[in-house]
């Protein structure tokens, strides 16, 4: 079981909850718009080779301070302060969607913090020809369907993945109003917040992972990141939707571990 670390930053303006487990080189995992619901199997898999830190972003679960963050720069600086407080001077950074956007910003703003970078279905750019789904207009029911590769995908999952999947679906629906309030601040109405002007500064070798059937942000966006980031390779995971790290956790964690090792 992971350890839960409670940090108080900037005189209590930010109370941050961080889940930690494993040993080995430090790895920071930043969750996406719909948050993280506890310690998922893919984090356990990564913890076998890395010391995994998985914070809840401000506005998610018990982490506070969202109202103190005006923009993506504030949110990115918050991650550096979190690493400082954890005593981590350099880490592999893995981020999903909103977390991927933050991870890319971290690597662009302060390359020395980031060892290797993994972006899973990252937000941060915009294509008129393949628009990012409107998460705010989705009902809980829409969201539960659209996050996965297809409505019946759970049939082909392993037992562990299926259980994680079912638990997650229920919790995502329950927490949607709060979680997407936080996400909306940095992604709505258009998630392009200028990363394209800064991405050239990314020095970290970068792996861009995408679920083949991502219905929130389609895989064509991988082209943006491979074009913008100097050392980026792209890998598309078959039979996976937006939550590729949940739906195909074994494939996902193996791809990440291999890239980071």
């Amino acid at each position, binding site marked *: 079981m992971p350890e839960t670390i409670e940090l108080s930053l900037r005189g209590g303006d930010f109370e941050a909850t961080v889940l930690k487990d494993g040993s080995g080189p430090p790895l920071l995992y930043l969750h996406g718009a719909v948050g993280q619901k506890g310690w998922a199997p893919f984090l356990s898999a990564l913890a076998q080779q890395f010391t995994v830190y998985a914070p809840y972003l401000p*506005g998610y679960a018990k982490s506070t301070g*969202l*109202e103190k963050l*005006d923009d993506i720069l504030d949110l990115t600086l918050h991650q550096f302060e979190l690493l400082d407080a954890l005593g981590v001077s350099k880490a592999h950074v893995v981020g999903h969607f909103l977390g991927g956007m933050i991870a890319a910003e971290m690597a662009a703003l302060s390359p020395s913090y980031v060892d290797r970078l993994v972006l899973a279905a990252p937000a941060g750019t915009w294509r008129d020809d393949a628009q990012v789904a409107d998460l*705010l*207009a*989705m*009902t809980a029911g*829409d969201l539960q369907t659209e996050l996965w590769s297809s409505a019946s995908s759970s049939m082909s999952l392993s037992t562990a993945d299926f259980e994680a999947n079912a638990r997650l679906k229920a919790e995502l629906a329950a927490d*949607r*109003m*709060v*979680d*997407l*309030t*936080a*996400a*909306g*601040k940095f992604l*709505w*109405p*258009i998630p392009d917040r200028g990363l394209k002007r800064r991405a050239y500064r990314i020095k970290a070798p970068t792996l861009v992972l995408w679920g083949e059937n991502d219905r929130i942000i389609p895989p064509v966006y991988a082209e943006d990141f491979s074009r913008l980031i100097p050392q980026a390779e792209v890998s598309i995971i078959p039979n996976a939707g937006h939550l590729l790290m949940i739906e195909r956790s074994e494939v996902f964690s193996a791809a990440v571990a291999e890239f980071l090792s």
Partner: protein
Amino acid sequence: MKLCFFHLMPYQDLPDNFEKDYHSVWVDAPNSLFDPKKAHHMYNDFLDELEYAEKMGFDAICVNEHHNNAYGMMPSPNLMASAMIRATSKAAVVVLGNSLALYNPPIRVAEEMAMMDVMSGGRLIAGFPLGTAMDTIFGYGQVPATLREKYTEAHDLVMKAWKEREPFAFNGKFTQLRYVNIWPRPYQQPHPPIWVPGSGSLETWDWTIDNDYVYCYLSYSGYKVGKTIMDGFWDEMERKGKEFNPYHAGFLQIVAVSETDEQAKEYKDAIEYFFKKSLHIPAGFGNPPGYRSVKTNASQAGSSTIDSRTKQLSDFTWEDYLEAGNVIVGSPETVRQELTHAVKELRVGNLMLLLQFGDMPKELALKNTTLFANEVMPYMRDIWSEYDTRWWPEGVDNSVPTPSQ
């Protein structure tokens, strides 16, 4: 009490299959459905109807702001209000209102409202809605988490711009200006009365009461559902130790008057168009994450969001609408009784009447207005006569205007 003629200016020519084959009346209804030549007549009919309402003795005429929709065709209520200011001379002009967070910089609101106030000789009531989620979040791309903060900052700027007599600098989070110095400034001093429309959000109650503004509950749920919201507002007033005054609140009610109860079925088509087409709003647009606080979403108002309400309303029959009080319909005597009962139950001094709705043709709208003004209004004037309103524009003659024949 104050009887205000409210107009939404609905698009009246949506296709028969609209609610079946189109996603929404708001946000993403394609404007290929909009026929400019037909809308030319609609706009002019609606302006005629507003003008007629003043002639018939209504205390005020009301316009409002909505975007990306076929529900109400007034992206700029100020244009309609200024046309009305020239066409009228007695009635208060209620702009209900300008959604403050949507103007950049928001002093545009201070300027235009000051213009209208000066043009009208002080007949303006300034409305400051937060705006529906469809208008603000989806139509105008505002961030839900910061919408209310942006709105209150814009409000502070507008109020200061109206009150200050020397240029000042404004260093806000959303607006920064080196020289704020509006010309013209309002006719009414220090500023026009302020009304705040809401739909039951707890933070709107707090803010409205703390600023001593009028709270207007605008919904189509009718007075029976409205009573739970208004009771909540009055309870909050009491908790804050404020003295009760019915003019502290307003309420919108759909009303249709005919010669007899039976004859009132002539409004059935317009009612159905309104509830089934004009309010065809899918789940998802009414209350996106962050638009309302966690506290409001957990409250009674939050549990009956626009999503759930409109779904229910679209399935109603004519009898259901009457029974639920969504509409008050019938002979003058029926309407007098039910409306008087509603006003006393709600304890509101400012009644906004929606007498044109849906695809109601102009002749029927004028008939409804005439019957209401002649047969109902005189019986309602004296309700709350023991109270004075301090939220009424100073440029209006407060004596009762005589209806024209």
